[in-house]
């Protein structure tokens, strides 16, 4: 099969497909019907988790009054999450969610930038598992915040928003149920996943095309130079998207937590 397709692959240009996101397992591990095999993405996930831990550990191990180096950078990040997200969206009560939100932001961002850092070149959140698990974490968090602040009246307040005519609840309650507990986590996860898949595919297409055109040694070599320049510019754009998506994921988690703190008026 490979022998038959290889000569064909040399003849024409083959654009990268969604198969870019499939990795073979390095260590096969099956426990009670669960596939816990470790592949490249899982390894990258462990590395990013370790990196997040190490960054915060070494930055704040011996904190100095006048911060410098790593402590400076990490303090700027914590300050940003604290002031621009926690205090701004949730209010003073938001201070106690700063650790969750900061960890979330750092993990999503470092997972995303893997897409443009050699030799990794793979965005961790381009696989559904991580965005899905993080979205479920945020879902469970805002539900538990709601229950701890309002008791089980939280569910009543969500499903039967106050200040509406009674008969209209027949229409609105299914909408509130789906939009709060189903649409929120799904959109949170898909927004991140889709941005990472699209970014990675576009980058792959431009680099593969640049390589193909530059080595073709005919008139399209000129276009290859253009594709290469554009691909490098796209790396900068992907860095921006990586930060933006981490910010959006974090701020929406904060918005949902804020919504669970008090019944809507």
């Amino acid at each position, binding site marked *: 099969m490979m022998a038959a397709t290889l000569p064909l692959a040399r003849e024409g240009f083959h654009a990268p497909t969604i198969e870019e996101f499939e990795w073979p397992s390095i260590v096969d591990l099956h426990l009670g019907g669960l596939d816990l095999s470790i592949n490249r993405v899982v390894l990258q996930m462990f590395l990013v988790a370790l990196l997040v831990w190490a960054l915060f550990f070494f930055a704040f191990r011996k904190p100095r009054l006048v911060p410098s180096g790593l402590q400076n950078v990490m303090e700027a990040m914590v300050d940003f999450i604290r002031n621009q*997200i926690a205090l*701004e*969206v949730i*209010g003073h009560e938001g201070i106690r969610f700063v650790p969750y939100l900061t960890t979330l932001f750092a993990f999503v961002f470092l997972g995303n930038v893997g897409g443009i850092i050699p030799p990794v070149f793979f965005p961790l959140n381009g696989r559904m598992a991580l965005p899905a698990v993080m979205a479920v974490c945020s879902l469970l968090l805002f539900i538990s915040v709601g229950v701890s602040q309002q008791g089980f009246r939280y569910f009543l307040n969500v499903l039967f*928003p106050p*200040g*509406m005519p009674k008969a*209209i609840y027949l*229409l*609105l309650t*299914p*909408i*509130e*149920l*789906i*939009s*709060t507990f*189903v*649409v*929120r986590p799904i*959109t949170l996860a898909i927004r991140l996943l889709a941005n990472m898949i699209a970014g990675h595919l576009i980058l792959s297409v431009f680099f593969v095309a640049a390589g193909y055109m530059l080595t073709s040694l005919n008139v399209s070599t000129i276009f290859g130079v253009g594709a290469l320049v554009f691909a490098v510019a796209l790396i900068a754009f992907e860095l921006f998207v990586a930060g933006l998506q981490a910010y959006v994921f974090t*701020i*929406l988690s*904060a*918005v949902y937590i*804020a*919504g669970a703190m008090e019944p*809507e008026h």
Partner: protein
Amino acid sequence: MTESGPPREPSGRGADAVWSIIGTLVGGVLAWGGIGWLLDRWLGTSFLVAVGIIVGMAGAFYLIIKRYGGG
């Protein structure tokens, strides 16, 4: 993030409103479209999913106008 109008709520709530409106619209279509689809399967009809989607849209618009349209 800052709004030029009179400050009604903390400015971070701007993003809240946008995402909440989109979520409500999608939720309305999914919830009532889903109910219509289930009724279609149960009754053997095929038009209730469309009715459900329209009802869901209408409900979502009602909710959005009630919640954010007050001014």
